[in-house]
């Protein structure tokens, strides 16, 4: 799992059936202090996340397992949870206030 910040939304009309109904979000990986850590990626959402949220996401085959449409699908990143707070890391990252 890694920490990330949701920075946008990806809309696809034409897509594989196994992605039907999933929300695709653009995630910028960050470290525990909130600093960017690597390039942005697209992940599907299982935690009702939205733009600006600090989240944690799973990559690799475990991400595909989180797809509610079945495990046999090509997803390689899934948002697993929304982070309320990261504590104990000095200048720590914090979750956005959701409206």
């Amino acid at each position, binding site marked *: *799992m*890694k920490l990330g910040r949701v920075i946008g939304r990806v809309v696809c009309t034409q897509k594989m059936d196994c992605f039907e109904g999933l929300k695709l979000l653009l995630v910028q990986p960050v470290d*525990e202090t909130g600093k960017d850590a690597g390039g942005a990626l697209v992940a599907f959402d299982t*935690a009702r996340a939205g733009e600006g949220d600090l989240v944690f996401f*799973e*990559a690799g085959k475990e991400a595909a397992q989180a797809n509610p449409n079945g495990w046999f699908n090509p997803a390689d990143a899934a948002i697993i*949870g*929304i*982070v309320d707070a990261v504590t104990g890391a000095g200048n720590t990252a914090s979750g956005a206030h959701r409206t």
Partner: protein
Amino acid sequence: MMLARVVANVVSTEKHPHYKGQKILVVQPVDPDGKPRGKSLLAVDGVQAGIGDLVLVVDEGGSARAVIGDESAVTIRTAICGIVDRVDLEDGRGAP
């Protein structure tokens, strides 16, 4: 398995059901000397680790599920499976 240092706690209310009740920690991989190496990652805790602990981390799904004892938690990939007391190296170095 890799050596890592626990650097932070993650608090999360809204999350996938597989992660309910699991403690999630931020771990920074370290080399055998204890120096940070690469990017930090998140791991589910199976051994009551805390901030500052040197720990053993598995980053493979089957291993992680064995650590938490729940084979059905198929979305979990990374887990802490041990707290390291010390690392002994041939030349006397090693992380405390």
